[in-house]
Structure formats: structure tokens, C-alpha cells
């Protein structure tokens, strides 16, 4: 075994890239859950975003346009969920699961005929000066732009929830929708917006896989990333700052175990892979006593 072959700088750098899809999807779901809605259909929205982004980027030649359309596609699918759960008051858990099934089928149909095609190139963004800083430079400043878009969205969500009035309202809706309604806020509209934002972010995360990470379209290519995103939100206890940590932890475990394997260390891969989930449960227990948004998953109907 030879640990010297593991280069910590490169490890951290690749960790940022590997975590980006789940980070994007998770930050969207975080907003949705802070608004009191549990959407388990993240995987379905991600894969829809992946295919929409790929198809558009392929035809237009522009990855940027692809990302925009991926966000639109994810948001569009999430609106189905919004209509069902907010207007027609269906159960969120069941509807979310159905959304995943629907999204997987829809994406596979859309993607027929796009096998074995390369996505247009999406170059890294070697930030001048900053990229040349030793150690920090290669870790932080030599990635493709979407890595930074992801971080920006996380920062924006953090600021939005913490400082803006709209963020306060969103949290109020999530904590107690009846009280928020009584105060005159339109719970349904706010939740519609949150759900659409969640869908857009999931779509971006999916498109990051199909346009940057792989970059190609194959059916079912998100391979469960959406479910990991759900876990990260919980791990982060619905806080954007910790979400970043969570995404790096979940993404990092994969990168780390691959690194250890490549270094020749015999490790029980399955047990290492399950460790972030166990950690999440422990986090839940430690900070429990209901730090989850008070109205999470509950159906809202304004009786008046």
C-alpha cells in the first residue's frame, strides 16, 4: 500500500467536481423542504434535467443553453408535483415516488436516438491569477463554471433564507403553514415557487452529469444521485452551510474510497459507502427534537 500516491490537492479538487451534481440537487430540495414540502422525486427531476440539457446542448451546440433548458425541464416536471400536492392535496410521499417513476420513463423516451453522441465541449474555467495560487489554486480555482454556479446558488440560498424578508416568509410557511396563512401569506404560491426552484436545481444537477461529468446521454444515468441529495439535505439539518459540508462528505466518501483502493488498500467498500448515511442518522439524533421544518410533508388546505 502506498499512500504517497494519493495527492491531497488533486483529491480535494476532484471532490469539488464530484460533489457538484448532488450539491445542486440538494440545495434545491433544501429550499423545498424549508417551505414545508417533501418532494421525493429528486431523481426523476434530475434525470429529466439531464436529458433536456443534453438534447438542447447537442442541437444548439451551447452547453449554457443546455443548462438553462435543463433547469426549465426540471422545474416543469416539478410543477406536476406542485399541482398534485398543493392544489389537489395528494400525499407528498406517494406523489414524489410517482414523480421519479414518471421522470425516468419520460427521460428515456426523450433520449431515444441520442445514444453514443458526445456533448459539446464545456471547458474548464482557469481563473487567471487565482488559479495560479499554490495549493489553493488548483483545488478551488481551476474548475468548470458550473462548479462555481453551484457554490453561488448555495450562497444565495443561504443569504436569502437568513436575511431576506421573502426568506423569512418561506421559512414561516415551512414551520407552520396555518399560522403563515393566518398572517395573510399565500402558502400555495410560495410553495409553488419553492417546488419549481427545487426542480430547476435538480435539473441543473442532472445536466451537470450529462454535459460535464460523463458527458453523454444514457438512460438512467443519474444512477441514484437524487436519493443521495435527499440524504444530504437531512444531514445538513436544512442549513445551506452544512449542506456544502454534507455534499463534500457524501461525494468525498466515494472519491476517498476509490483513492484508497487505487493506493492498494483493501477496504470494505460497502461499509465505507454506508457510513455517510449512518452519520446522517447520528446527526439527526444529536440535533433532533424536531429541527425539521414543522410542516414538512403535511398537507395544507386553507379551510377558510
Amino acid at each position, binding site marked *: 500500500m502506498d499512500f504517497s500516491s494519493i495527492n491531497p490537492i488533486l483529491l480535494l479538487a476532484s471532490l469539488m467536481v464530484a460533489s457538484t451534481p448532488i450539491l445542486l440537487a440538494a440545495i434545491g430540495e433544501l429550499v423545498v423542504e424549508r417551505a414545508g414540502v*417533501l418532494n*421525493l422525486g429528486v431523481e426523476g427531476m434530475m434525470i429529466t434535467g439531464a436529458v433536456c440539457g443534453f438534447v438542447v446542448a447537442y442541437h444548439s451546440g451551447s452547453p449554457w443553453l443546455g443548462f438553462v433548458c435543463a433547469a426549465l425541464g426540471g422545474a416543469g416536471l416539478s410543477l*406536476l408535483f406542485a*399541482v*398534485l400536492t398543493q392544489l*389537489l*392535496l*395528494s*400525499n407528498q*410521499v*406517494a*406523489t414524489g*415516488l*410517482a*414523480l421519479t*417513476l*414518471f*421522470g*425516468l*420513463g*419520460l*427521460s*428515456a*423516451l426523450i433520449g*431515444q436516438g441520442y445514444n453514443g453522441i458526445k456533448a459539446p465541449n464545456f471547458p474548464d474555467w482557469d481563473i487567471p491569477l487565482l488559479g495560479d495560487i499554490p495549493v489553493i489554486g488548483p483545488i478551488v480555482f481551476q474548475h468548470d463554471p458550473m462548479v462555481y454556479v453551484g457554490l453561488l446558488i448555495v450562497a444565495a440560498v443561504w443569504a436569502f433564507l437568513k436575511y431576506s424578508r421573502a426568506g423569512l416568509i418561506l421559512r414561516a410557511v415551512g414551520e407552520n403553514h396555518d399560522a403563515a396563512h393566518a398572517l395573510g401569506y399565500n402558502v400555495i404560491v410560495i410553495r409553488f415557487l419553492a417546488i419549481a426552484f427545487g426542480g430547476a436545481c435538480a435539473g441543473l444537477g442532472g445536466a451537470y452529469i450529462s454535459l460535464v461529468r460523463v458527458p453523454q446521454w444514457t*438512460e438512467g444515468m443519474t444512477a441514484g444521485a437524487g*436519493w443521495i441529495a*435527499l*440524504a444530504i439535505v*437531512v444531514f445538513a439539518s436544512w442549513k445551506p452551510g452544512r449542506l456544502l459540508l454534507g455534499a463534500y462528505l457524501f461525494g468525498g466518501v466515494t472519491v476517498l474510497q476509490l483513492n484508497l483502493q487505487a493506493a492498494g488498500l483493501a477496504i*470494505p467498500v*460497502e*461499509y465505507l*459507502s*454506508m457510513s455517510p*448515511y*449512518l452519520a*446522517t*442518522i447520528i446527526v*439527526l*439524533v444529536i440535533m*433532533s*427534537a*424536531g429541527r*425539521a421544518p414543522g410542516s*414538512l*410533508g403535511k398537507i395544507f*388546505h386553507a*379551510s377558510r
Partner: protein
Amino acid sequence: MLRLEKRPQPSQVWTYTTPLLAVAITMVVGGILFAALGKDPLVAIRTIFWDPMFGQFASYSLPQLLVKAGPLMLIAIGLSFGFRAGVWNIGAEGQYIIGAICGAAVGLAFYPMEARWLIFPLMIIAGFAGGMLWALIPGFLRVRFGTNEILVSLMLVYVAEQLLASMSLGLLRNPEGMGFPGSRNLSQITSSQNLELISGTGMHWGVVFAFIAVIFAYIALSRHMFGFNVRLAGQSPKAAAFSGVNPKRLVLICMGLSGALAGAAGLFEVAGPSGQVSIDFNVGYGFTAIIVAFLGRLHPVGILLAALLMALTYIGGEIAQLTLGLPGAAIQLFQGMLLFFLLAVDVLTNYRIVLAKSEAA
């Protein structure tokens, strides 16, 4: 402007007509989808909904409905108690896996002993117990620490999946399997197989247990104190506490019960139709059962019908792929649509749509 108004009582009429309405809408929209794919919509719809039951080979596919619906029923019945009482176990997939691993481990531990009278019952017990214990983890954490059981039970699904991979590659791997992952085939070992009870019917012990569960659930909910407590806790936790229901005990019972039934479903599957512990053993019954439980409105008979409907779309979907060349993705999309419509029109049962004159009042 249209507005929803809660009915004082769920509508009797809509209770029975909404599922039919949903299926009808799905047929129309699905038909348009199939037509867009260049298939005759009427033929496609008939292939999916009619042929498995009354088609030429119904004598084969009809019993297969039970094989497919059995585990869904068993799991969904267990979940329905918790869902009624406000206990949200969505980790049935994990409990299903653990039940299968525990049951299979018992069977394999005794291999090649032949005492079926001893081994098979022990396996069933291990299946029940394994699933139950796995579900009691989130149950215990909720009553002790107030941890959200939705999230813990979901996390434990991932853990169970990793354990399954580890078992298939390591401890339970078939020593005579040419190095391939996966255990010995339990359904080929007399002492541990979950037999098809009547040849050609697909009826195995798991299906029998599923029907027993439906009957027991029906009795419990309509005639027994436990069912009353469950319903009360769901409708009004305060009233339940007032009438002496111990909410913590109820959480543990609901989690344990749903886990036990999910674990049993896993055991029956691994010892029968599936045969072996393998990396891809779980195919999503635990998650589908959640949908089934809601489609069945958490009622035992409703669950029975919903499970059969789901099984029908699976089997009909396969036949449609075979005979019409419909892509698998179209079937998946169609199933998703059916679920959406079923969930959507359900609103009519509990609410009525009224024309609101003005918002102010």
C-alpha cells in the same frame, strides 16, 4: 374562481368512482401517448389492461398477478396502520432487504440439513424479526429522541442496500457459484424453499400470508380496539392520548408491524420466486408499496385492489413490449401517469369543488 371545500364526510359515491375515473383518464391520455409513438391506442390499452386477465394466455398471466401483487399487498398492509396513525415508515424497502437477508442466512446456515419442518418456520421467523428490528430503529429513535422517522427509515434503506451487496459478495456467497456474486438458490433446496402451493397458480406462502394480512387488518380496523386507537391517533392525537392510548407504544407497534410484514415479504420472495440473495435482489417493492397503500386509501380491501392494479400494469406492460414493441420507457411513463391521476382525482373524495363568489368574507 374554483375553490375546494372539505366534505364533512368522505363522499361514498366518489370513494368508489374516483379510481375508475382515474383509470379512464389514464386510458385516454395514455392512448394519446401510444398513438404518438405510432401504436394503435386501443390495442395498446387492451393489451395492458385486458390481456393479462382475459387474453389468450390468461391462464398463465392471471396467477402471476398474485405473485407480483403478493409482496406489495403484504408490505402495504403493514404500512397502512402506521400511515393511519401518523407514523411514516418509508423505509420498507430496507426492511424487505433485511428480512430477506436474515431469512436466507438462517436457511443457508442449516444447509445441507433437510429438516424442513424446522428450517422453513425458522426462516419465516427470522424474516419477520429481521424486518421488525430494522424498522424499530427509526421507531425507537423517534420515541426516545424525537427523531424524524421518515428520514431515518429512508437512510436505513441505503444502509440495507450496502449490506445486501456485502452479503452477496461475501458471507452468503454461493461457494459453488463459480465466483459469481449471489447466494445458493434457496428455492432449489427442499428444506428452505417457499413452495408454489398449487401448481400453476403462483400461489406461494407469501401470497397466503398476504391474504391473511388483509383479513386480519380488516378485522383489526373495523372491530378491534387496536384499529380504533390507530384511527383515533391519526385523526386526533389529543383525543387519543385522552382516551388512554400510549403514543410511544403506538409508534413502536406501528413501526414494528410494518417492518415485520416487509421483512416477511422479503423472506418469501428470496426463498421462492427470486430464489437467492443477490446484489440486485430488491426491485423497489418497498417503495411501490407506499404508493399502493395510498392508492388503496389505507384500507385493506383498497390495498388488495391497488396491488392487483399495479401488478396488472407491470405484467400488461411486459406483454405490450412483447407484442407491440412499445419501449419500456413508455410503460414506465404510463404507470407514472396512472399514479398521478389516481392521486389527483382522489381529492374529490374528501373535498368538493365549489364556485367561490369572492375571496373576501
